[in-house]
């Protein structure tokens, strides 16, 4: 059967085929959630799955996939096809990679797998998945802390290699992977879950190929991408033509670089849109650099969020957009820049993109959200068992005020949407006590629609000493309001000891504390939307009655209107 032109597939057949493909990626996503060992994947859902075509173009992504993961899976395919000629890709192979420079990744803890699917000897595509492993080795437990200056320190670098060859596990490779990570038995379970998801996806795709011949499938893949491209181009056509610029700065890299610029100019002409990050700062020693594919993820996220949240994620979206960024810059890092904390930077890139497009799309814009991916990692030996543990968590904060409603309080924003860990799960699994978890008073920026509030979590080691590593952003530069809305509060890390509170660095590493001391994590709030003077009196009354805002704060920002 030869491939028919895409146009030969009618919208009905295509919808039914597309439905079947979405079933497959969603099923593999669920399979990883269930079969993985680590809390980070099972509870926080820090993983994604997708189907790529033989050219490495994205066809379908699982509904709950994370935007930043898209970049890694695309990057892996790019490097895989670069390194392995067609005659070295076989049925039953499974490729693994994580390196941002040699493996197309965005940071080392995100481990990517890809498995080719053959129908009658012909390559139909690749089932891919990615999971964020709670540790990938390197100098710091959790592989996410500040203080690292080159990729070698951040963990084990995996170029694209075969983990399975023609259906057989390459034990030498697997042994090497596991030897270089902390808590290897847990990592092993996570790898198994990812492998099982690859195999499941391949099996399902083969079942689909029994109903549709390979030619129809290939034509269907092309048609899906073409239609998405047409759909996003139509939406881009609705943006007023013009050039829109915005600039913001990242707090620091934890290694001496301060106020790192991120700038973008967006040019819209008809159904074409381009993003130029010229003016962004050079890459830095600290690990907040972002590879270009992660910057691309941020752009796709903003386009979807502001234009068409329901548009499918596939190559049609990707090819409709032009992105350029200066080489070896904070948004287009080159080897050997350290990148573990790239999510914080990606959040700031999104703020900047929204700031630029707000001028053209005011209704869809939002105030700056918490602009961070505040990370807290605790590492130690459990005194109850003597076994090592790594507890990693990223915390949400405020979401920006919106045209028609307040920003949500205490929530993951933009590039990430990972769940928190239940306090009861933390305390059963780790020798830690969570003393409180709540919203921070006065942290949401004022406005017609106020910004959301940041989160505070207080964690104390029980019966042992623990090592704390953290990664904070918007700890210095407040999340800005928009169209007259006020700024939200910054975040911070504190130690709460017998002698009182002591401020920590924004990106602290290797902080050893005992049971008399607690770590206080405070995440940023978010900026408001529209002038505070326009805030509805009922909303103001609720701000006061709920205790979310103090009388002093309300008077300061809303004046007499705040006095009932």
């Amino acid at each position: 059967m030869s491939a028919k032109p895409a146009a030969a597939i009618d919208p009905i057949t295509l919808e039914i085929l597309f439905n079947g493909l979405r079933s497959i990626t969603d099923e593999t996503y669920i399979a990883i959630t269930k079969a993985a060992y680590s809390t980070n994947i099972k509870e926080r859902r820090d993983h994604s799955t997708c189907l790529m075509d033989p050219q490495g173009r994205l066809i379908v992504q699982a509904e709950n996939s994370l935007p930043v993961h898209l970049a890694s899976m695309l990057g892996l395919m790019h490097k895989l096809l670069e390194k392995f000629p067609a005659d070295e890709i076989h049925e039953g192979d499974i490729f693994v990679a994580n390196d941002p420079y040699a493996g197309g990744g965005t940071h080392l803890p995100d481990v990517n797998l890809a498995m080719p699917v053959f129908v009658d000897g012909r390559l139909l595509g690749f089932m891919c998945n990615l999971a964020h492993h709670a540790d990938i080795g390197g100098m710091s437990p959790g592989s996410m802390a500040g203080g690292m200056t080159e990729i070698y320190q951040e963990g084990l670098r995996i170029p694209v290699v075969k983990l399975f060859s023609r259906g057989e596990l390459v034990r030498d490779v697997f042994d090497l992977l596991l030897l270089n990570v902390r808590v290897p038995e847990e990592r092993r379970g996570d790898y198994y879950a990812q492998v099982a998801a690859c195999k499941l996806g391949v099996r399902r795709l083969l079942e689909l190929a029994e109903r549709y011949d390979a030619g129809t499938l290939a034509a269907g893949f092309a048609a899906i991408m073409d239609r998405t491209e047409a759909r996003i181009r139509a939406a881009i056509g609705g943006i007023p033509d013009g050039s829109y610029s915005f600039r913001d700065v990242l707090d620091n890299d934890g290694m001496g670089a301060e106020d790192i610029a991120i700038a973008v100019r967006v040019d819209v002409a008809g159904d074409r849109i381009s993003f130029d990050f010229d003016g962004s700062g050079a890459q830095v020693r600290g690990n907040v650099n972002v590879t270009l594919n992660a910057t691309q993820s941020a752009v796709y996220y903003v386009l979807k969020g502001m234009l068409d949240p329901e548009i499918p994620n596939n190559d049609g979206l990707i090819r409709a957009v032009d992105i350029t960024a200066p080489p070896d810059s904070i948004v287009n890092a080159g080897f050997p820049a350290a990148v573990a904390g790239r999510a914080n930077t990606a959040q700031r890139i999104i703020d900047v993109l929204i700031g630029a497009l707000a001028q053209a799309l005011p209704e869809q814009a939002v105030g700056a959200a918490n602009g961070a991916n505040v990370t807290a990692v605790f590492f130690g030996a459990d005194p109850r068992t003597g076994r090592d543990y790594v507890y990693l968590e990223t915390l949400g904060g405020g979401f920006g005020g919106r045209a028609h409603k307040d920003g949500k309080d205490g929530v993951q924003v933009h590039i990430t949407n990972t769940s928190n860990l239940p306090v009861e799960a933390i305390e059963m699994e780790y020798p830690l006590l969570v003393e409180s978890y709540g919203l921070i008073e006065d942290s949401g920026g004022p406005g017609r629609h106020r910004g959301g509030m940041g989160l505070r979590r207080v964690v104390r080691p029980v019966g042992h000493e623990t090592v704390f590593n953290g990664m904070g952003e918007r700890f210095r530069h407040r999340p800005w309001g928009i169209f007259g809305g006020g700024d939200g509060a910054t975040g911070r890390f504190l130690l709460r000891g017998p002698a009182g509170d002591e401020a920590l660095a924004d990106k602290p590493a290797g902080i050893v504390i005992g049971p008399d001391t607690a770590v206080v994590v405070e995440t940023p709030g978010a900026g408001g939307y529209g002038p505070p003077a326009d805030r509805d009196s009922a909303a103001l009354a609720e701000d006061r009655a709920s205790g979310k805002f103090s009388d002093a704060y309300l008077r300061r920002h809303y004046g007499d209107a705040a006095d009932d």
Partner: protein
Amino acid sequence: MGWTIGVDVGGTFTDFYAFEADSGAVRVHKTPSTPDNPARAVIDGVNAMAARHGIDLGQVARLSHGTTVATNALIQGKGGRLALVTTAGFRDLLEIGRQIRPHMFDLQKDHPPPLVPRQRRLEAAERVTADGAVRTALGQDEIDRLVAAVRASGAEGCAICFLFSFLNPAHERLLRDALTAALPDLHVTISSDVQPEFREYERLSTTVLNAYLQPVMATYLHDFESALGAAAPRAALGINQSAGGLMSPERARELPVRTALSGPAAGAVGAIHIAGRAGARDVITLDMGGTSADVCLIRDGAADMTYERWIEGYPTRLASIDINAVGAGGGSIAWFDRDGLLKVGPVSAGAAPGPACYGAGGGEPTVTDANLVLGRLSPKGLLGGGMPMDLAAARRAFEPLAERLAMPVERTAHGVIGIVVANMVRALRAISVERGHDPRDFALLAFGGAGPLHAADVARALGIARFIVPPAPGILCAQGLVVSDLRESFVLSRLTRVGAAGIDAIRGMLTELGDRAETWFAGQAAAEDARERQVRLDMRYVGQNYELAVEMDAAAALAADADDLRRRFFAVHDRSYGFHNPDDPVEIVNVRLTAVVRLRHADPPVTAGEPGASPAPFERRDVRFAADTATATPVFDRAVLTPGHRVDGPAIVDQLDTTTLLFPGDRLAVDAAGNLIVEIGE
């Protein structure tokens, strides 16, 4: 033994199914629902049915009731004014939840607001740790302060949820007792009663939902019981639960959240009953109505259960029959998405204005219109329904679609059926394939107004060999209520390693739960041979955070040693994920025991009938099975189909409440219980 009546309150109709065990008599009745006061339709309907069929209401022994009061209160925001007390430092948890957004890319969508505003969320200075030990005791001064604060809040209900209360409920109970002593009219819900399980946010959310629904349910049941007491004084009232099975009105007042998903559950219980009578142990149900289709997997005569459900945007952890709903019904509207792909649903034309062919003002092309265009539905409407359908209006509704696709109207309509079937197939795959079950090992049981019409298409798409249509497919939920048993569940949440050391602890928990079940059985005055005990262990590998359900009979669980339990877990792990690691340690998170009192359900008699006979069709009409060719197809009246009859496809069976479609090659036989059994042709 008198009459048993099942009453299912739906959005549009309230259905009644009455059964008299000694004579085997069955009576059915339907009356429009009265959403402002659902009890009115129930009581009026019971009286009307009694008058029409000569039922002596004094002889009604049991009335089993499926109610939507809880669900409606949630949708309309009419629950109670609540206070909440949490462990100090955690009052915002209700609002933070899992700190996630409901939609990855939508900047405007949030989870619904918390059911208790922050000003009425109080914190108690108390703390229990992960081993159940008290770190900070709940003192009398603190209790007094909290009682005063709850009193001052003006709340009519109070939810209490403390950390690790599933291990040590003492603090929750202390505060509850103090509150009820000081404020006797206050409804109090504590999390260790509602669902004493690990994971505080889901437990908290479930507890708050329950407290929110208590005042509404109490009012409803009070009115209902007094009206029923006057009409049918000897009738024992049973309230249906989301897990299937009945509870007493007293229990429903304590745990109204258990009714929130009870509507579809009754359908699943009815389906199990029907499948049993048809000799099928493994079936997948397809209950397709006007706006949605509910699907459920039944294995070895029991429905799959789930313990995680979202109710109107709020998470709960309570047993419910694992029913997957998809926006695919007769009223589902076909439309073009922005990428030009044709979609069907989830928006529905509903009952009003309804599909274009109803001629009631609807102009959008719907699934029902497509079936009419294809001749699968009769322009004369349902048999005896007296409501003709407007074929010209249906075609008109499809013309704009057909034009855009550059296809004939018939091919367009055929495509719409293909898409709605694909949507249902995806929902079915989610409960079968994604749970490790092969749908080809199951029969499809089709009911609801539109289920039997699409069953042949759905079965083909999944490789299912056989589908079953019950005698009264439109009233299966009410029938399910009549055959429901009494049910109660008990749980202990204790992380326990499965090994030589842990086995005694596991047996201890099983014994404790067994004792609680015996107390409950005694309270129900249940005969020994009517008692059933099922154990479900939530197990996982040590370090995992997601459990698998391992089910067994209570006696088998008590007799099992650690190796038995591990083996059973491995088998479930294999089925779910295709692998297991025999060397890794395994632990139990929850031990659950479900106690059931089997009520006596005599069945309507079955008749052998005359094997192999074929009745005569009452008409022929042109039906499009493929898009481009019409086939003259015989149409049979279900009323003349009796046990033993056979019909070969292509054929259509029309009846009062549904239409069954047989493709060419499909073969129908009527079984002794009056079910249509259709074998899918090659």
